[in-house]
């Protein structure tokens, strides 16, 4: 049978090119299994019909699309590399009398075998792992589950379809590249002297300038609004700068080093510098991409991780008690009694006890500090965050009730808490209103999302009575009620705990809102810490999961790219090192030169990624604040831990790769 001949040939080809095909097959298996896992988790989520997880489904779906794109990139990159490496071999088949249709048949079998290995291996690995990953996913989301082994048919079908199409495209590409090339080209391969790259001064300088600009933006931004505004432009600048620096900057720098004779003509630098110039030319784009993706991985994992871990901190701030209800003050409600009584009534009905309740009236707004120290009302959208204050107004009654401190404020007087302990002038002036500052007090411990949005300034102003608060409210609404910022209200916030069995608590909370609405006309928030926690974990748990998932995909891609680059270079460098050996370089010298070169190529992107992360850190802290994470220590620790983990994984890839490289060169 002629066909079986080509099949046999294809099989032995794959075996002979093990060094190339083994990582390729492994990557195929990994990618297929990742895709399968993602798909099966989605279908399992749907089957469990958890009320929670609707957000997750959307994010998972998005992640699947990214996974397919990554799979495309990896498959095509590696495939084109494989074909290039095998040009000589294919050319030889041509010379030995194989026609293009024979070569195509051979290619067909090769792709089919690789595809089957990838699909079957990937799906087996996926089926085994998906249950475990699903459990991890659910526990990240804090959704309880029981494990049942299953293989969702739709996931299998979808995997086969998607990768079937991908492999088909690969096959078409391979056949086309075989048909298009003539045997002589195949035999010659890529062997010819390369031109030394030229210094392109302008792009190099532009790279430095853009990087400096991006960093300055990121570091110099004040406050959340400004940071959010400049972050994307800064990222774009830094990405552009990274490419320019790797492409032009590296070569300019190396050429400059080459001009420094005392530096260049040293045994350690001589070979490295001249070799690096060529190496950078071939690899700059790839290295820049790896650098940027590494930064993305480090940033996204460390942010989602610290959001995930910082969760209890945030909840603790938001929920001084387990339950929280609030309403807007109007004619009906002036002191929180209506709300409190309604809660009590509902508690009696469901047989639980309200304990440790406390509440207060509050009014929030923003003020802008003028040069002379007085404040003007603001809708909070001014750019200069250092001059922007968040004001919280409270009454002295509520303050005394909750802290036990008596203030005795008379009309026209106020007590003030300033978060950053800045000196407060004797008279506090806000537009036309002004108060004599009688005393400064401790943190009243109230919470509002706005507090975290503007990082710098917060002032709590304790006024004599509700009437004074209404004066402030009216002044604000007169000015802003009809603008985009809208009118504000004085609200009553009520925090309390509930005593009772879990089942009782559950009924209490489930029916709380519908019952409160009956009595309280302008009810706002009805929340408890468990519900908030569940929402939180679902959202950030999914983020974290997806972040890790995509990072693994990225690492596979990056390590494959690096691995194949090293192999290609190993074949190129082999000859070079043989020459150096003959000219009188010792084995040790050769080994240390190789090590330096690989290390530089490898760790340059990582180093740059760490630098980017460090520069982005202050801005990220601000953004995390907007996401309610105020614990900077957690974020810093997460960032460092993630960076180190990433570096460690990267180092393992490096060790494996350089080992292969040595073997080729030696």
């Amino acid at each position: 049978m002629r066909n079986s001949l080509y099949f046999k040939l294809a099989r032995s080809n794959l075996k002979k090119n093990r060094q190339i095909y083994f990582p390729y097959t492994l990557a195929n298996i990994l990618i297929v299994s990742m895709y399968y896992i993602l798909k099966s988790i989605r279908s399992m989520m749907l089957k469990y019909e958890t009320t929670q997880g609707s957000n997750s489904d959307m994010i998972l779906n998005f992640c699947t699309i990214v996974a397919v794109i990554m799979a495309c990139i990896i498959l095509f990159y590696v495939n084109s590399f494989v074909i290039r490496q095998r040009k000589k071999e294919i050319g030889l088949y041509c010379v030995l009398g194989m026609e293009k249709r024979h070569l195509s048949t051979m290619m067909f079998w090769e792709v089919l075998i690789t595809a089957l290995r990838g699909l079957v291996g990937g799906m087996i690995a996926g089926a085994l792992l998906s249950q475990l990953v699903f459990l991890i996913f659910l526990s990240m989301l804090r959704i309880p589950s029981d494990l049942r082994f299953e293989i969702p048919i739709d996931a299998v079908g979808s995997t086969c379809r998607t990768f079937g199409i991908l492999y088909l495209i690969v096959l078409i590409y391979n056949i086309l590249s075989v048909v298009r090339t003539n045997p002589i080209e195949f035999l010659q391969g890529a062997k010819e002297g390369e031109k030394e790259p030229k210094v392109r001064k302008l792009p190099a300088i532009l790279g430095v300038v853009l990087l400096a600009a991006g960093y300055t933006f990121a570091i110099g931004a004040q406050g959340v609004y400004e940071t959010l505004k400049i972050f994307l432009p800064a990222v774009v600048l830094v990405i552009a700068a990274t490419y320019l620096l790797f492409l032009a900057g590296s070569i300019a720098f190396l050429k400059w080093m080459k001009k420094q004779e005392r530096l260049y003509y040293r045994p350690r630098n001589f070979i490295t510098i001249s070799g690096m110039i060529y190496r950078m030319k071939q690899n700059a784009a790839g290295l820049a991409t790896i650098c940027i993706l590494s930064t993305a991985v480090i940033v996204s994992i460390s942010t989602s991780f610290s959001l995930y871990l910082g969760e209890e901190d945030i909840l603790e701030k938001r929920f001084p008690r387990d339950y929280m209800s609030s309403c807007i003050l109007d004619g009906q409600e002036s002191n929180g009694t209506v709300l409190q009584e309604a809660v009590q009534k509902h508690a009696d009905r469901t047989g639980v006890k309200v304990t440790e309740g406390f509440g207060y009236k509050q009014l929030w707004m923003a003020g802008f500090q003028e040069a002379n120290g007085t404040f003007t009302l603001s809708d909070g959208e001014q750019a200069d965050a250092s001059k922007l204050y968040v004001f919280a107004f409270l009454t002295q009654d509520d303050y005394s009730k909750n802290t036990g401190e008596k203030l005795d404020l008379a009309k026209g007087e106020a007590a003030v808490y300033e978060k950053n302990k800045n000196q407060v002038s004797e008279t506090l002036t806000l537009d036309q209103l002004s108060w004599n500052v009688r005393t400064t007090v401790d943190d009243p411990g109230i919470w509002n999302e706005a507090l975290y949005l503007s990082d710098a300034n917060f002032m709590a102003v304790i006024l004599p009575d509700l009437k004074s608060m209404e004066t402030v409210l009216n002044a604000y609404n007169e000015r802003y009620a009809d603008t985009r910022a809208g009118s504000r209200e004085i609200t009553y916030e009520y925090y309390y705990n509930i005593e009772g069995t879990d089942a009782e608590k559950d009924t209490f909370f489930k029916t709380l809102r519908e019952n409160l609405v009956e009595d309280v006309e302008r009810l706002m928030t009805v929340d408890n810490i468990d519900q908030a926690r569940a929402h939180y974990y679902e959202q950030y748990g999914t983020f974290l999961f997806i972040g890790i998932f995509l990072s693994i995909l990225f690492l596979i891609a990056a390590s494959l790219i690096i691995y194949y680059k090293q192999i290609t270079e190993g074949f190129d460098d082999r000859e070079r090192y043989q020459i150096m050996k003959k000219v009188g370089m010792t084995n040790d010298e050769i080994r240390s030169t190789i090590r330096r070169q690989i290390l530089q190529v490898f760790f340059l992107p990582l180093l740059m990624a760490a630098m980017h992360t460090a520069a982005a850190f202050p801005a990220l802290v601000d953004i995390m604040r907007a996401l309610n994470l105020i614990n900077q220590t957690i974020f810093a620790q997460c960032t460092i831990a993630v960076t180190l983990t990433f570096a460690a994984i990267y180092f393992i890839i490096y060790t494996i790769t350089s080992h292969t490289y040595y073997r080729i060169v030696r």
Partner: protein
Amino acid sequence: MALLEVRHLKKTYTNRFGTNQVQALRDVSFTIEEGEFTAVMGESGSGKTTLLNLLASFDRPTGGEIILNGLSFQNIREKDLASYRRKNLGFVFQDFNLLDTLSVKDNIFLPLVLAGAKPEEMKKRVMPLAKVLRIDDLMEKFPYEISGGQKQRTAIARALITEPRLVLADEPTGALDSRASNELLNMFEQINRAGQTILMVTHSTKAASHAGRVLFIKDGIVYHQIYRGDKSREEMFKSISETLTVMASGGKTHA
């Protein structure tokens, strides 16, 4: 005292399982005086490449001894070999073996850089050499930009810049056309007249006819040798040809 002394050199290659032994060199002895230009001739498989590898210290002999300038190779430790080679030997290869990432100048500098020489010192040495070899206007070019003859002259400059005791050349004209070959061989003679000791392995009769002495190797032993003496190059060419004919027909000549 002779510059190079080769005594009863023997090299046996054994395959991996030790079942099959090939004697590349059986018993080779000769000496080379300072300032000599010697060619080693022989057919493929005669052992001349093996001999060169041993002389270059790329490989260790199975038996016998090589003594360069009074020091036996046996007494040099493995890790010192590279630096010994760098200081005492210069190499010219058939396929030039230039590094394509280095300019002509830097290729010439390579052994000096490895030896830790100062940039000023290297520059001082390279210019006179480049003038003699007529590559002084190519210094900033890269190997892919120059011709084969120019490449080989660059390689010679690289071999000479360390001022080695002995230059070993392995088929230096093998990859060159006849014009470039002539030029190169004349240059070798010129360098030799300036006092440089050269040992050249070749199977080109014409290349060998430029040498002051020709050693013939056959079946792993020195089979015959011819001194040029007062002979012209044409006469030398003729006697080498005759010797080769005798050797090929299996006749016996005194060693």
